[in-house]
């Protein structure tokens, strides 16, 4: 798949950058120029103050255009800065961008060895020799192009999923939107009043659903789960399992109502966090969408008569279907679960008036009277305990769940408006009503809510005292006095944890999760919606805790990214991929084992089993190249020839002596070699004397320096080398704790 263009002999152009004074004041650029001129195949050598500038780039362009150069080396800063700059120069001048090699003589030379300019210059020469050695064997590789399907699978039809679907459809991409639940809306539908606009979650869900229904490009499948996925970016194959509702389509609505009334099978309602019961024939809530009921087969045990009466409504012949979807990319919008407090955490499940914030929101939405009543009790004051399940000292959830301070404070404003004489107590660690939400905090304090602050190490204590529940808190704002209160209701402000189904999806799609078990993005600041797997994007709370605004922002990002990837109909991939020579390969599985991306597969070739690289998935890691016992694998852009040439050029014995005034330019002859050999023999004299002086007793550096009449730095340097080579070992520290004593190693 990669072509090797042999355009005659390599004509190497070498360009050495001064980088202002960054390189030039330590590395003797002119000396490097002189040296490099003498190397074979080097046709042009130039130096310039700033190679990355326009004049610098034009220099290279001109030389290529004139035909003097067909391989380029720039010795300058790190490729992280200007690799693409100079590759583009090469491309614009008609050269293949992979015939360009960048040599780093700044970060890895002049900056690192600023105290040793002579040695730095020598190192720069060696690095440049290696780069020249590489570019001599570099191949002109073309990018790999694959066709891509302009369709996206979105997993999860909550707010993020639906918003992404709408955006993608409007941009012209086909969307398959699958939702595990039989109704759309996810967690937003459970919230009730939302902060910022005081709309209800259900209203937002309905708005989004209606927009989805208007767009033909979106195909929504509820009651559907991802079973498996194969392929790679641009060409995935997903298997989706669709669970039936068992309700006959077009059944009479009134008849169905009767059926529901008659049905006696009830289970705890998960939508209301088990606060209420629901029938086996149900909708999540009145007005849940799509507007079709569902039969929960597991909890449904109708009598014979029931089935007969309602045979026009119920159809148990409906089967689970498997869909095969061909898609170009996937966006994961699988959402979150609210943290479930442990048994007896702040009295949860043990004391009857301790509930979670999510449960409280359900109670408020379901209670439309003007009195707040729970478990038959009139609620006059509510205590909110913050940071439950987030910022844990002794748990795994170290993160802050972001949305909950605002949500809890907003809830206290809502209940004051709705139920008038309710007072809220906020037991917090910090108040993080960021941005415009700060105004809610002001309003809540001003309306008479009381805020008490506690330390993570001394959380409030919730206890039952006969009829009352008491909460005791060491209030930091009152000099840590213990304050006691008896609220009628205690609401634990629970944060977000990854949805428990995230694990299943993660293992199918192989998307990595972070330490906090949320999906991992490639870069938290610059690439927040992509995963390391090309074509798999993440949006919404499955990536990390966030509110609805932030979820929508991330799903818009993800849809933009997915669309820009697929809209051209083809995808260009970096050609740095491995290639296996089938003639040599004898399938031992070592390469496939070691590949992080599962890019190597077993195939048949001329009657034998060999390994083949999927070049679409291969990321050019190179592990396979190094483990292959028969050396059958080569990596484009880093071929064995190139690497071997680099090693040879870099390590060859050369004499590099700085040109002194009036001296002739050395040509690398024998006399130089003798002189350097001589130098090598001198050093051991110092070593010998150090070893001698330590024969009698242990000494520290000042003492040795005195004995041998040598400066301390020289002694230190040689001493350390001797320690490194195992001649000497360090002993105890001296009395003043300044120097170690050293002794001969036995």
């Amino acid at each position, binding site marked *: 798949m990669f072509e090797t263009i042999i355009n005659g002999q390599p004509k190497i152009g070498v360009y050495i950058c001064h980088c202002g004074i960054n390189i030039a004041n330590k590395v003797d650029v002119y000396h490097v120029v002189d040296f490099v001129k003498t190397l074979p195949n080097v046709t042009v050598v130039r130096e310039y103050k700033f190679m990355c500038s326009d004049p610098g780039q034009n220099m290279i362009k001109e030389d290529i255009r004139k035909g003097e150069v067909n391989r380029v080396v720039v010795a300058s800063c790190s490729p992280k800065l200007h690799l693409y700059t100079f590759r583009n120069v090469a491309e614009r001048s008609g050269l293949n961008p992979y015939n360009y090699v960048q040599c780093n003589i700044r970060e890895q030379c002049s900056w690192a060895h600023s105290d040793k300019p002579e040695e730095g210059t020598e190192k720069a020469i060696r690095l440049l020799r290696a780069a020249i050695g590489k570019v001599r064997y570099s191949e002109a590789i073309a990018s790999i192009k694959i066709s891509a399907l302009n369709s996206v699978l979105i997993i999860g039809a909550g707010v993020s999923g639906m918003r992404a679907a709408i955006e993608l459809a409007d941009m012209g991409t086909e969307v398959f939107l699958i939702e595990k639940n039989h109704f759309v809306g996810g967690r937003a539908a459970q919230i009730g009043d939302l902060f910022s606009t005081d709309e209800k979650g259900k209203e937002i869900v309905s708005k989004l659903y209606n927009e989805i229904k208007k767009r033909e490009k979106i195909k929504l499948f509820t009651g559907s789960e991802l079973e498996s996925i194969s392929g790679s970016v641009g060409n995935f194959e997903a298997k989706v399992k669709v669970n039936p509702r068992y309700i006959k389509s077009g059944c009479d609505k009134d008849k169905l109502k009767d059926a529901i009334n008659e049905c006696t099978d009830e289970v705890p309602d998960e939508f209301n966090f088990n606060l209420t019961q629901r029938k086996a024939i149900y909708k999540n809530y009145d007005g849940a969408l799509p507007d079709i009921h569902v039969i929960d087969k597991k909890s449904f045990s109708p009598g014979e008569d029931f089935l007969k009466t309602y045979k026009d409504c119920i159809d148990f012949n409906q089967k689970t279907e498997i869909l095969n979807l061909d898609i170009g990319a996937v966006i994961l919008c699988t959402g979150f679960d609210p943290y479930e407090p442990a048994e007896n955490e702040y009295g949860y499940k043990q004391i009857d008036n301790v509930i979670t914030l999510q449960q409280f929101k359900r109670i408020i939405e379901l209670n439309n009277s003007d009195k707040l009543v729970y478990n038959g009790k009139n609620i006059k*004051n509510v205590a909110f305990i913050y940071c439950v399940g987030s910022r844990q000292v002794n748990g795994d959830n170290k993160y802050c769940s972001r949305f909950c301070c605002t949500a809890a404070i907003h809830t206290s404003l809502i209940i004051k408006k709705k139920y008038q004489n309710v*007072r809220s*107590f906020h037991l917090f660690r910090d*108040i993080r009503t960021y941005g415009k939400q700060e105004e809610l*905090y*002001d309003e809540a*304090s*001003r*309306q*008479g*809510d*009381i*805020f*008490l*602050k506690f330390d993570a190490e001394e959380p409030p204590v919730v206890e039952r005292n006969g009829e009352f529940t008491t909460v*005791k808190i060491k*209030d930091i*704002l*009152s*000099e840590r*006095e*213990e*304050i*006691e*209160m008896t609220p009628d209701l205690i609401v634990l402000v629970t944060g977000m944890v990854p949805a428990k189904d995230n694990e299943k999806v993660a293992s199918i799609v192989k998307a990595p999760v972070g330490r906090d078990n949320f999906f991992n993005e490639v870069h938290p600041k610059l690439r927040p919606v992509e995963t390391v797997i090309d074509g798999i994007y993440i949006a919404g709370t499955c990536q990390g805790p966030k509110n609805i605004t932030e979820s929508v922002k991330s799903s818009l990002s993800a849809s933009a990214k997915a669309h820009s990837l697929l809209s051209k109909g083809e995808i260009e991939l970096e050609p740095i991929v491995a290639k296996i020579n089938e003639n040599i390969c004898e399938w031992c599985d070592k390469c496939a084992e070691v590949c992080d991306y599962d890019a190597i597969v077993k195939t048949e070739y001329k009657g034998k089993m060999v390994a083949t690289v999927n070049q679409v998935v291969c990321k050019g890691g190179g592990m396979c190249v190094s483990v292959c016992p028969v050396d059958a694998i080569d990596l484009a852009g880093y071929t064995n020839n190139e690497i071997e040439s680099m090693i040879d050029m870099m390590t060859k014995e050369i004499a590099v002596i700085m040109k002194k005034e009036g001296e002739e330019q050395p040509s690398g002859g024998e006399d130089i070699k003798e002189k350097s050999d001589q130098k090598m023999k001198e050093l051991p004299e110092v070593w010998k004397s150090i070893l001698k002086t330590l024969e009698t007793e242990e000494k520290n550096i000042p003492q040795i320096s005195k004995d041998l009449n040598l400066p301390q730095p020289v002694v230190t340097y040689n001493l350390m080398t001797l320690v490194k080579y195992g001649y000497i070992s360090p002993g105890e520290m001296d009395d003043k704790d300044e120097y170690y004593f050293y002794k001969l190693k036995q």
Partner: protein
Amino acid sequence: MFKLKPEFSTELSEFGAVDINACYNCGNCTAICPLSDEDNSFPRKMVRASVLGLEDKIQISADPWLCYYCGECSTTCPREANPGELMMSLRRYLISKYDWTGLSKKFYTSKKWEFGAIFLLAGLVFLLFALLNGIPVSTDKVLLNELAPWQIVEIGDWTMAALLAGLLISFIFNMYRKIIIKDENIKIPLKLYFTEFWALIFHFASQWRFSDCEMKVKTFWKNILEGKYNYWIVHWLLMSGYVILFIMIVGFLGWFQTDKIHPWWHPQRLLGYYATFGLVFGTVYFIIHRYKKDRENTKYSHVTDWTFVVLLLMAAVSGILMHISRVSQLPVLLTYYMYVVHLMIVVPMLMIEVPFSKWSHLAYRPFAIYFDNLKKSAGKIKSGS
């Protein structure tokens, strides 16, 4: 351990507190307060105690009396929670707590009671004159001492003084109980009561702390006109005027309530002029600022703030009018009527203000400093420093 009492902040709003729940404990108020220090750190702690309803913590503290309401805290408060006004409302609250009769609470929280009491007492004075004396005797020369013989008035004065002083002393003892006796952490050695006594006299006479309140401005004259010394000087003028009148009326009424007309440079007249000047200048000055609301500490006025300063002014003005009428030989009846009116103002003012309302700060403030010094010195002895 303290019990949370959130209704307390609603109760305190009747005593004048505004928006204290908005406080988010940044501490800017305490940082900027010129009178707050490490030993007595306010007003944030007091705001916090008020929001949580920790009444015991408030009553055991002398801090509300150590504040002289420069208002810098309220100006600085980023939440506009009016800590300065909170300290003022705590003073009103404490006055109503030291008072065991319960009348003071009624006067602070009910306008009906406040004005009802004033008019009732004024009415009683009027009835006293109307029924007992009838209307006056000689109509060609002013003889006040026939209308109201000074010996009898003096007896009235002493009775009233004894009654009011007795009440006030019992309230001070109540204050002592709350600040010193109820504080289990501190035991005051007897000797300290004597060695610290000078503070009581000194602060009573000079109101020295008032001069540290308020931000220091650039020049000495500016400090007098608008800065540190301004309120202190005006207040001292008013206070000294009042004290002079008090001494003359209670101790030397025979000399003061004379029917002789002395020359203008006579002490009886000069002292009276100084006193009334101090009273009128002070009250008018404070009334103007309260009306204009142009200073942080006059933005909010409780009804008792008005009654105090207006009654004082009316007492002074009625006294001046009576004096003018007497020495200028205006119709005799006018003088007699003015005398009655004067007493109809002064008697309610004293009966209500001295033990049950704002006047009592004259006693509570010096005693608060005294008690606080006792606690501080006892603490130093205990820690051996």
